[in-house]
């Protein structure tokens, strides 16, 4: 048993995405680890009053995690705080919950996404230190879509098969990409060519780009989620109405 246990043992850097109470004193922990990807671990006894893991297994903080096992749910042995990043505060917490929900809904299990893991770490550090959160979220959404196999077409008009003109107006087909429309066209989403080019360069300095990029990303993510609503988005809207 101990030999097998040693073989199935793994140590990885990771983040807690969410936890659920499990049995009387344990927790089921959804994690996103650098090498292992998204996984579910059981943290035995983590809800006991004096558990060493209590207070460590919180979201948005980089942790050193070790676990063993081979089934769908592995057993967490140890979780240690790596540190170096302040806790998220205020509205940034809601952004964090949103990003975690995106990962839980869109990232397949046990599939390593190391590049995206780094982007996630950057996003968390950004949310902890910067006042403006929009560009951080857009940039992460773009990386996430690319990682799960939906790289956005941003620099080519898919109908005319030509480059994007910053001065023209486009709409966006979630399956194909940008299509030119006349500026006065009726329904649907309208994006400035400049917005598409800005997103391609991760430049969210213009207010118009920020606003249009938000709508475009929402469309694409909703499409990937097959139009099943995100809980964190609904709750954010309810909080804004208070």
């Amino acid at each position, binding site marked *: 048993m101990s030999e097998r246990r040693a073989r199935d043992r793994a140590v990885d850097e990771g983040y807690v995405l969410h936890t659920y109470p499990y049995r009387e004193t344990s927790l089921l922990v959804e994690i996103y680890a650098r090498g292992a990807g998204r996984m579910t671990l059981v943290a035995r006894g983590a809800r006991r009053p004096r558990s060493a893991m209590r207070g460590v297994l919180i979201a948005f903080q980089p942790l050193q995690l070790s676990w063993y096992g081979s089934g769908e749910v592995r057993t967490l042995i140890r979780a240690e705080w790596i540190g170096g990043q302040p806790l998220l505060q205020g509205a940034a917490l809601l952004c964090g919950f949103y990003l975690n929900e995106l990962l839980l809904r869109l990232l397949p299990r046990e599939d390593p996404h190391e590049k995206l893991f780094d982007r996630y770490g950057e996003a968390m550090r950004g949310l902890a230190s910067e006042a403006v959160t929009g560009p951080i979220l857009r940039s992460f959404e773009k990386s996430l879509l690319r990682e799960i196999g939906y790289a956005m077409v941003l620099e080519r008009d898919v109908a005319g098969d030509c480059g994007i003109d910053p001065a023209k107006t486009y709409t966006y087909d979630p399956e194909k990409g940008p299509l030119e429309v006349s500026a006065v066209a009726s329904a649907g989403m309208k994006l400035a060519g400049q917005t598409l080019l800005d997103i391609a360069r991760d430049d969210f300095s213009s207010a118009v780009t920020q606003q249009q990029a938000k709508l475009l990303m929402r469309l694409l993510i909703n499409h990937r989620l097959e139009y099943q609503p995100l*809980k964190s988005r609904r709750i954010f809207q309810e909080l804004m109405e208070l």
Partner: protein
Amino acid sequence: MDALRCMPGVGPKAAQRAAFHLLQYDRPGAQRLASALGRALQTIRRCARCNSFTEEELCALCASAKRDPSLLCVVETPADLLMLEQTLAYNGLYFVLMGRLSPLDGIGPREIGLDVLLERATDGAAREVIVATNFTNEGEATAHYIGEMLRGRGIKVSRIARGIPVGGELEYVDTGTLAQALVERRPVSNA
């Protein structure tokens, strides 16, 4: 046995033991338990002012004339309320959310009754609202939005402090707490 298993900490074995014990050796005890549960279910409801459990319209705390109505302390659960009462350091009133904001579990402002809290906090009596939700991400988010909601309406909102425990030694404090205590350091007062 199935009915007994609905309690936390009671598995199949414990439920079987309890059931046989009650039936074999302690039938009066079983009767007491049954009537106590029945009575509790019929009479216990939520306090109209603080949302905690009570048998009356108002709980004993809210009805007490000795408490300071200008202070309102917001907690997540009745258990948190009892902990704060044990400190004997607080003389104001309470509001129990019966939960916390948890976007990933779909628990939002409606589910924890932030609208009821808003009504209670703006009824004219409270001058300061003390937010004593947990120092988890969910508790912090709850505190932030309670602050946003009330500050705009001219009510002073404060948050309980966090840091090194009383009698704590830095050497034995966990790193997360220590790091946050550094971030949230305060000037040494000369009072």
